[in-house]
Each structure stands twice: as structure tokens, then as C-alpha cells.
């Protein structure tokens, strides 16, 4: 069965390593914080200027001065720090953040990503996404394998305006875990009960399948 959004987040959480600083984008990526594996310590960075982001506050304890990049009220963990936006993006561009997880509308087989603009629709802006994808060494995209119309989001070439080129290394979808290398998607794992055939039929870009593809363990 295909994963739901929580399942995608749960699988991505398995990629976390002890001691990492991690930037989570809006949407599915935010959920990753709920599934940090036991015994692992990570710190979450939010690009508006906080390291050591904690869970949402209890009702009545919201602080208008303490928000994340999605403008949601948050709390901080012990050891947290605040900084200005230039310092925040110095952390990102300077590759001090070990993992970036973000959503996408399209990803291409050479690692291009499109997630900020749909021609003909209201453009809201890229926020920090272009800085994040251009700078981070380790980027995981969290998204559904196909869009609502059933069209593959893993493409030969992105059709939408790009956010960054040749930058995505790994994609986790509701159907599969895929690595991007040498101009192709490499199928690493399948969602429980999802067949290789289904993944094949829903992947427009080049897909490399090597031997038996294991199921994810969640």
C-alpha cells in the first residue's frame, strides 16, 4: 500500500544521523520531526533565524516573536540559539546544515527541482528554497509520486520554472525511495506492498532497477 504523508516523513526520519543540523521545509518535511529515531540527537534549523526548534507551544503559551519559516508559533529546545537572516543563510550556504528536506512539484532525472512557481497562477515567491537547494550537499525531496491528476512528478525534464539544477540526491515518495545519480532515478526501496511495476509505470524519467528491490521497513 502506498504511504500516507506521515509514512513518507517516517521513512525520511530514518535518514537522520546523530549530531546533524537539519532544515525541514513546509508540509510533509515538517512531520519528519515527529519520528526522530531513538538514541539520535538532531537540531532543527529554521531559516528565519533559529537553531534548536522545538514542538508547537501549548495553547496560551504562544509567543508572537517566536515563529518558524512557515510563520507558525513554535518553542525552542535547550541549547537553542537565535540569529539574523544573513547568519541563517551563512549556515545554509556554508554547508553547516547537514540535511535539507523539502517538498517539490517536480524533480527531474538529473536532480533539477521545481517547487516555487506555476505559470499563470499567482506567484508567491521562492522564500529560502533557492538558497537551500543550491547550497545543501544533502537534499531529500519529500513528495507524492504523482500529482492529483495522476501525472508523474519524477520526470525526464521539469516542465515548471526551476528552483535549482542538479541538486536533488534522494527522493522519498508515497511509493518508493529513489536515489538520483548519473542522470537517472535509481530505485532503492518500495513502499510496503507496492510493486516495481507500479513504480515503473508512474515514473516518467529514466528508472534504474537493480535486482530485487527491498520493501521499506517502517
Amino acid at each position: 500500500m502506498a504511504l500516507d504523508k506521515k509514512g513518507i516523513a517516517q521513512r525520511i526520519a530514518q535518514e537522520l544521523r546523530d549530531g546533524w543540523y537539519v532544515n525541514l521545509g513546509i508540509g510533509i518535511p515538517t512531520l519528519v520531526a515527529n519520528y526522530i529515531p531513538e538514541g539520535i540527537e538532531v537540531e532543527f534549523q529554521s531559516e528565519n533565524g533559529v537553531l534548536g526548534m522545538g514542538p508547537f507551544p501549548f495553547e496560551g503559551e504562544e509567543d508572537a516573536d517566536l515563529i518558524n519559516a512557515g510563520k507558525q508559533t513554535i518553542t525552542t529546545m535547550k541549547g537553542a540559539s537565535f540569529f539574523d537572516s544573513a547568519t541563517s543563510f551563512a549556515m545554509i550556504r556554508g554547508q553547516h546544515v547537514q540535511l535539507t528536506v523539502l517538498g517539490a512539484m517536480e524533480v527531474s532525472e538529473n536532480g533539477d527541482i521545481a517547487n516555487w512557481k506555476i505559470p499563470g497562477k499567482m506567484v508567491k515567491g521562492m522564500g529560502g528554497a533557492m538558497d537551500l537547494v543550491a547550497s545543501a550537499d544533502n537534499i531529500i525531496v519529500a513528495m507524492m509520486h504523482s500529482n492529483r491528476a495522476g501525472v508523474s512528478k519524477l520526470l525526464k525534464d521539469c516542465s515548471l520554472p526551476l528552483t535549482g539544477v542538479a541538486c536533488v540526491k534522494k527522493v522519498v515518495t508515497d511509493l518508493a525511495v529513489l536515489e538520483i545519480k548519473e542522470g537517472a532515478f535509481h530505485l532503492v526501496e518500495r513502499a510496503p506492498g507496492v510493486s516495481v511495476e507500479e513504480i515503473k509505470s508512474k515514473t516518467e524519467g529514466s528508472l534504474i532497477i537493480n535486482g530485487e528491490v527491498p520493501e521499506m521497513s517502517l
Partner: protein
Amino acid sequence: MNKVINNVTEAVQGIEDNMTLMLGGFGLCGIPENSIAELVKTGIKGLTCISNNAGVDDFGLGLLLQNKQIKKMISSYVGENDEFERQMLSGELEVDLIPQGSLAERCRAGGAGIPAFFTPAGYGTEVAEGNEIRVFNGKPHVLESALHADFAIVKAWKGDTDGNLVFKATARNFNPMMAMAGKITIAEVEELLPAGELDPNEIHTPGIFVQRIFQGARFEKRIEQRTTRTK
């Protein structure tokens, strides 16, 4: 050096039609709300506003948009604002969208005397069109230029009569860089203290970057996305 002015009316003196302003804040967090309200009263028009966001319909820069006082916005993200959308689609409002890190660094560069810098952000995308590209360490980078403003308007938690500023939590955001990049920088603070009351070790923005400081009469500090968990 005493930078204190009496009130918000004095704070915005000298701001004229068609000037370029920088306004601190991320979303509605850390915005100079007293000065924005005063700018609405003045009716000054044709403003170019450099600000990460454009407020919401009835708060923040949205108030200046409603009043059609803004000619151009330079921002990284401008959702959450219907009037903004209407003016942008009708062509009344010019919009320049810039990656957030580049926006922050362009403000910092403006204040730091660095005319331009190279960044990887935006390479291969439409925001890099027309910009010089140069390869460093095998990776292409985009040339981005410094931003300047006639006035920078920032909001701090505490300030002193010398113009030294301390920000609270994530309300710091763009405020320190914008304070550096304004020809004249106006700081509105929640609490104004005599010089010497703030610990010099803990000052975020040194007073050299601030020309005018005043204590805001009222801070609504509206929350854009109130999110909580249950006990």
C-alpha cells in the same frame, strides 16, 4: 550620542514620495508596526519597499498596499495577501522576487560597503537571467549586487538612547542587516532605556547604524499562524 526622537511622527520625517525603504520583519514577526501605521497617515506614495514579505491584507505592509502607496516590492515571499495579488496581476504593482538568503546578504552587503557578491542561489533559474555567472571550485555562482535604502525602518525589543538594539527571538530576522543598509535608520523599540542600561556584551545592533530611535506607543504583535499542541 543621543538618537532619541519624541514620537513616530518625527521618526518618519523626511520620507518622501518615490523613496526606497527597507522594512524589517519576517511575516508579521518583528515588523515596525508603529512606523508603518504612521506612513499610512502621511499618504506618501510611489514607495519601493524592500521587505522579505508584504504583510497581510489588514496588517503590516498590507496597510500601505491597501492605500496604494507602494509602487514596487522587493521580497522573497509574498503570499497571504489578496490585495497584493490583485495589484500584481493588474500591473499596478511591480514585484521583484529574490531568494531569501540573497535578499538578506544584499542588505548586509549594502550596509557593509560590499558592492556585489557571488552566490550559488538561483543558478540555472529565471532569477539569475541577465546576471553574470562565474565558476568557483567547479560550481557556478550568480553575481548579486548590494541593496541600499533612503530609510531603513527596523523594530527591536530593547534599545538605548545611543541607538544600541537588542532583538527578541526570531523577531531579529532581517532587522540587523537593514539597520546597516539605510542612509537613515529608524528604530522603533518596545522598551527604550538610558545608555548604559544594556549590557554591551549583548547588543545585537550597535548604535552606529541607527540615526533615530523611539519607543513605540503600542505593539499589537499579531500572530499569522497560531499553532499549538494539546497537553
